[in-house]
């Protein structure tokens, strides 16, 4: 019961934070709130028994992600949105409401939250839960699935992360950047 209360209040906080993020115009405050958003998400994952995911989200979402956004802000030096909102907000709003309504209609058939007889729980999950100890000797099923049963997937993910690192290095890895360009640009503007 108390799980449900914590769950629902955290979800409500999450929704409030998300709406506040959209409505604010100061990018700095937005990034701060986004860090808080990640913390709340991670707490929700803990409440929903996804321990490893919460671990990752806490380290990645609240830590690295926030730090990277702040460094970007330091580089772009634009702390405020110049054109808050667009000229005609009704079209995007209508699109969003229609899509959301369709998705909510889709959820009406989903089994309720935490139903142990839902199709998602009865298909392959029991196999891993049963076989993890006899086959791999690892009590943490997430680790055994991650590294052993679905090793190929993880290899793919690692390659994606590696590629993203290389791409960032190619895009902004060089140190010789702004000062020279800016000087040239300023001279052009003056002339």
């Amino acid at each position, binding site marked *: 019961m108390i799980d449900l209360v914590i769950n629902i209040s955290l979800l409500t906080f999450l929704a409030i934070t998300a709406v506040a993020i959209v409505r604010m115009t100061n990018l700095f405050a937005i990034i701060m709130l986004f860090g808080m958003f990640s913390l709340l998400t991670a707490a929700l994952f803990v409440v929903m028994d996804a321990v490893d995911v919460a671990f990752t989200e806490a380290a990645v979402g609240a830590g690295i992600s926030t730090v990277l956004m702040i460094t970007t802000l330091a580089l772009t030096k*634009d702390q405020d949105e110049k054109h808050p909102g667009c000229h005609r907000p009704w079209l995007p709003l209508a699109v969003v409401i229609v899509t959301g309504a369709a998705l909510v209609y889709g959820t009406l058939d989903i089994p*309720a939250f935490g139903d142990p007889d839902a199709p998602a729980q009865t298909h392959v999950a029991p196999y891993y839960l049963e076989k993890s100890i006899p086959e791999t000797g690892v009590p943490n099923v997430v680790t055994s699935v991650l590294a052993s049963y679905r090793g190929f997937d993880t290899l793919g993910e690692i390659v994606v992360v590696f590629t993203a690192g290389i791409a960032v290095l190619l895009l902004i890895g060089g140190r010789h950047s702004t000062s020279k360009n800016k000087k040239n640009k300023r001279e052009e503007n003056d002339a």
Partner: protein
Amino acid sequence: MMDFVLGHYNYWIAIFLMMVGFYTVISRGNLVKKIIGLNIFQVSVFLLYISISTVQGGAAPIITEGVALYSNPLPHVLILTAIVVGVATTALGLALVVRIKEAYGTIEEDEIHEQDHSL
């Protein structure tokens, strides 16, 4: 009725967050804010998957003596890797924003379009 609402609250909030992120991406002109919108969208998908994996009264999927009911480990694996990949791709997007700022001097979409047209 109450059971129905409580049983679907998670999904509805996930959809709400998804729509909030979607709205931010399509209606705001600031590139950093667009990336934050994408991140909110991403988090909503994580939330949906983890909600599906939860079993009421179940424990975290670490096998211990005397516990019979565990939540589903497969979505956890999926989302765990997705989070790390997500931050890597977010970093890539932010790097693009930095380059755009250096090339155009602004991170507002309107002004970038204006500069492109004036060429």
